[in-house]
Every structure is written in C-alpha cells, then in structure tokens.
C-alpha cells in the first residue's frame, strides 16, 4: 500500500515529462493574449478561471476577431466538453470520495493528467488513496501552466516562433497513445477519430473536438459487439 505522499509524488513524476510541451505552449498562450491587445490581468485570469490550454487561445482569438462573447463562451464549453468523457472514466476510481472532495479534485482534471493517472489507476486498482495520484498530476500541471502563461504575459513571446514549438502538443499526445498501437481495435478507433477530426475541422464552434471522439466511441462499441 502506497502512502498519500508517495502517490502524490508518483503523479508528479508521471506527468512531468509532458511539461516539455506544456511550458512552451503556456508561454505562447500568454504572449498571444497580450499581442491580441487584451489586458495582461485578463489574459492571466483565464489561466486561473478557465485553466484549459487551447480553449484560452481560441477564446481570445474569437473575441479579437469580432465574435460575440456568447460565441466565444460557447466555443470554450464545446472544446472542453471532452472532460465529460474523462470524468466518466475517472468516476470509477473516485466514487468513494466525499462530494466536497470530488468537487475540489475536478478543478485539476486535465488531458495529460487524466491520461497518466488513468494508466496508473488501471494497474493499481486496489490502492486506497488513488486520488492522490490525480491530485499530483493535476497540481503539477496547474503550477506549470500558471508560471508558463504568466511568463508569456510578462516577457512576451521569448520563445522564437521559428522553432514551431506548438508542434510539441501533438507530440505529447502521441507519447500518450503510442503504446495502444499494439492493439488493432485501438488503432481502428484512433484512425476513426483522427480522420473525423480532419473531416469536421471546419464545423462551427470547434466542435470537431467532441464530434470525432463520439464517432470513434461509436465505432468502439461496434467493435466490442463484433468481438463477442
């Protein structure tokens, strides 16, 4: 049985390699916000209040492009709706927690944290304080994201644009799913999702980000039925 502290540290360690892509991306996010002409306090407030990478950039780009606040808010909601799927997966491991703890822990659920904690949970189902792993991944992400966006806001885009560091984001997610390429059913689901995301990329409100997972999960359900 691991202690709370051990689990928290393990979570921190499991997510830290992803900071290689998260930190440059955060700096870019902060810098873009200021470049688009928004007040630095507002740009930072987003990292604290929304705390959701790409959705923050989209929000500011839409507003500065003349879109209504309603459209910007709706887009953030749709981009971040993928968290509903993460929550559904994580709920199995968090069901014993009190309601208040569930409310608090929800704030730090992010893509990479979900991915790494979910991998850990699957292998260590019987640990008593599993949720400390999720707190570890989430808090690490939170602290790095705040520092990274703040530095981008204060120092501007000191990450040279020619380096194309935004490309580190798809790479970080490749690292997350690459081991599942061993399983044919997962490969089919991934390709379905990827191709759908390109096909529906121009759908309104960036909804490709939730349309393609729904299509891919539908295919997954069909595959499960075929397996039987």
């Amino acid at each position, binding site marked *: 049985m691991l202690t709370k502290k051990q689990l928290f540290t393990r979570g921190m360690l499991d997510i830290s390699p992803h900071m290689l892509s998260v930190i440059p991306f955060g700096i870019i996010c902060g810098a873009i916000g200021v470049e688009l002409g928004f007040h630095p306090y507002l740009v930072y407030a987003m990292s604290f209040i929304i705390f959701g990478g790409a959705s923050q950039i989209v*929000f500011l780009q839409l507003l500065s492009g003349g879109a209504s606040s309603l459209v910007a808010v709706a887009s953030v*909601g749709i981009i971040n709706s993928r*968290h509903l799927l993460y929550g559904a997966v994580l*709920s199995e491991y968090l069901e014993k927690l009190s309601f208040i703890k569930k*409310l608090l822990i929800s704030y730090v659920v992010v893509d990479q944290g979900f991915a790494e904690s979910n991998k850990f949970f699957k292998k260590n189902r019987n640990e008593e304080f599993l949720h400390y792993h999720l707190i570890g991944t989430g808090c690490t992400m939170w602290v790095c994201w705040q520092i990274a966006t703040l530095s981008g806001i204060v120092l501007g885009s000191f990450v040279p644009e020619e380096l194309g560091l935004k490309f*580190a984001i*798809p790479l970080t997610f490749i690292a*997350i799913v690459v081991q599942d390429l061993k399983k044919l059913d997962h490969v089919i689901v991934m390709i379905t999702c990827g191709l759908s995301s390109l096909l529906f990329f121009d759908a309104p409100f960036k909804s490709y980000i939730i349309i393609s997972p729904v299509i891919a999960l539908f295919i997954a359900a069909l595959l499960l039925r075929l397996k039987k």
Partner: protein
Amino acid sequence: MTLAAIIFAGILTYFTRMTMIALINRDMLGDKIKAVLEYVPSAVFPAIIFPGIFINDFGTFIEINDPKIFGALVAVIVGYFSKNVIATIFSGLLSYWLIIFVF
C-alpha cells in the same frame, strides 16, 4: 465585459470537469458503457494529434512533404520502442528542426 465572459467560460469548463465525477453515480453506467469507456484515450487524443500535424495555423491542409509529418512519424517510431515520453517529444522536435533548419 470580457471578464464576465471569462467567468462564464470558466464555470462552463468547470462543469465539464465536475459533472461526471461528482454528479453521476458509477452504478448508473452499465457494463457495456464501461467497456466502451476503456477506449476514451484512443477516441479523444487523435482529435488533438491529427489537426496539430495536418492542419496549419491558417486552417488549411499542409503539403504531403511537410516536415511535421516526418517529425510525427519519427516520434511514433521512437515512442513505440522507447516507451519514453521525453524521447518521443524530443525525437519528434529534433527531426522536425533538422528538416526546417538544415535542409
């Protein structure tokens, strides 16, 4: 005005995180749904990966010889065999930089 919109967007985002964790009881999901949920990482992350590689900043498709495709392929191969996140990201970035800066 913008701050109000940020707060609304934040509340909405928080609800997407909290709803399934705090308001849904696991027993409400049947075994079939639980089995499908096993596929969530494979069903969600390619929607971030594919556009990040194949679509450029202007929302159009990249050329077939774009260095990002080469970088992504290298990252997949290195990641598959090394099982290491840092090696995956670095190999992808380095091979991408190799093409844009050297060739």
